[in-house]
């Protein structure tokens, strides 16, 4: 008797669970007719502050719309586009990734726009205890350098190019203690004292996390490599109009206020 009841309870429970999962799946998929719309933005990890603000402002003016932002290293985001073939907006930290996406046919070519520039700088601890004045000082003995991985985030690719152009690759590499997959980790390592010097985007220096804890040393234009930040709609978007609206918003006057707030300069002309 008891075993019979238990068996029935067991079977019923399993049936209920399966039915529940099934129904919830149907419910979440059926809400996409005009009321609750979502768009997914793949954005460079360094833009996390910007995309948060863009999300808040865009959702304010578009009731019922949810903006999902996935921040990550540009290489990782490109991998997501490649493998999952979903998302609506692609916003990598360097034009190279956009060029790769165009070549592979992942984005709509006529929607590619340049928003701002990303300027690499040397970040050091407040007061510059290691007395670093230029790229060449990164090769000095006893300086712990942290850089982005050349295959991962945009800053890694840019850093590799800068070091190659200045023939510092060999000497600086000897001082590299860690390579990261996002630019944000570099700021963390610098602030917590795990690294003496990092190469990061200039805008990161304006973040509260770094305020009063880091100093910035500019890299002269002839040694540097400024990268262009592009944005585009992907070919996988399910909601072209909304994706276009978001892109126009991010590149328009309201969006520009947000970019400038976080230390980015709009591309003039």
């Amino acid at each position, binding site marked *: 008797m008891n075993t019979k009841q238990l*068996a029935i309870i*067991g079977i019923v429970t*399993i049936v209920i669970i399966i039915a529940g999962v099934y129904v919830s799946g149907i419910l979440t998929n059926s809400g996409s007719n005009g009321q609750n719309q979502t768009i997914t933005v793949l954005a460079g990890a360094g833009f996390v502050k910007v995309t948060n603000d863009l999300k808040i402002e865009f959702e304010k003016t578009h009731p019922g719309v949810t903006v999902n932002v996935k921040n*990550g290293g540009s290489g990782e985001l490109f991998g997501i586009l490649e493998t999952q073939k979903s998302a609506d907006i692609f916003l990598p930290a360097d034009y190279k990734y956009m060029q790769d996406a165009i070549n592979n046919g992942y984005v709509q070519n006529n929607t590619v726009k340049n928003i701002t520039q990303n300027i690499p700088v040397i970040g050091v601890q407040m007061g510059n205890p290691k007395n670093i004045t230029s790229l060449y000082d990164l090769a000095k003995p006893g300086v712990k350098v942290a850089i982005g991985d050349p*295959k991962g985030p945009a800053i890694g690719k840019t850093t590799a190019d800068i070091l190659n152009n200045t023939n510092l690759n060999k000497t600086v590499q000897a001082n590299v203690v*860690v*390579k990261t*997959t996002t630019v944000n980790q570099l700021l963390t390592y610098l602030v*917590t004292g*795990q690294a003496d010097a990092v190469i990061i985007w200039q805008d990161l220096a304006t973040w509260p996390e770094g305020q009063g804890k880091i100093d910035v040393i500019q890299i002269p234009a002839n040694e540097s490599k400024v990268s262009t930040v592009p944005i585009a709609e992907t070919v996988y978007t399910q909601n072209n109009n909304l994706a276009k609206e978001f892109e126009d918003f991010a590149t328009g006057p309201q969006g520009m206020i947000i970019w400038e707030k976080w230390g980015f300069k709009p591309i003039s002309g």
Partner: protein
Amino acid sequence: MRTKLEITFISISFLLTALLFILLGSLFVIISPNDIINSILSYEMLYALQLTVTTSLIAATIVMIFALPTAYALSRYSFPLKTLVKIILDIPMALPEIVIGIALLMLFGNTLLGEPFRMFNVYIIFTTTGIVVAQFFVAFPYAVRILYSTFNYINPRYEFVSRSLGYSEFETLRNITIPLAKNGIFAGGVVTLARCIGTFAAVLFVAGGTYLKTETLSIALYLNLSFGNINMAITAGILLVIISFIAIFFLERYAKEQYI
């Protein structure tokens, strides 16, 4: 004739086993065998494999050296604050590994322990030494747990008899306790080694997860996923599954169940 309860419960076990099997099997069917072979033979994967095996063996050995006396003390002696010691030793098992990682990063970084270690030229953060340190802290509680149960299963009377026959404490340990605990020690070693091999978050934080420098198999999986090399990422996953299988196989085969 089985009862309905038996049939139900056995069906549930089979259902979940099938689910797990499909889950792990899915790794093997996504990419072609050719891609798997090529990825395994790549310099990066061989480096990660060798680094993982080396660091795990070192870490597991150190864990066992310290866990044996710790577990024996907890099992046999009573001493002040014993309950507290047991709780603190167990905490890391319930803690997310990532918390151990950030705690170690802060401890050995620029603060408490970092300076004295650096004076002796021992660098932990962002080094292969750091991998071993992270693995040690993640695996140690598991080893203590298993060895503690093992010693609890052994009747202290054997040890008393040995002592009353005039054998020293050390001889008793060598002739009675260790041989009786052999299976449990073996099981503890296998679980410890498997934990060390699988450690991810703690290793990522402490050793930095740098390509071809502190790249263990689990880090290789994560890095290649970030780089968009899906083949390499899945292959790293497959290697970890195979290693776990071997570990579990030895565990089931050579360790008697009562000791685990």
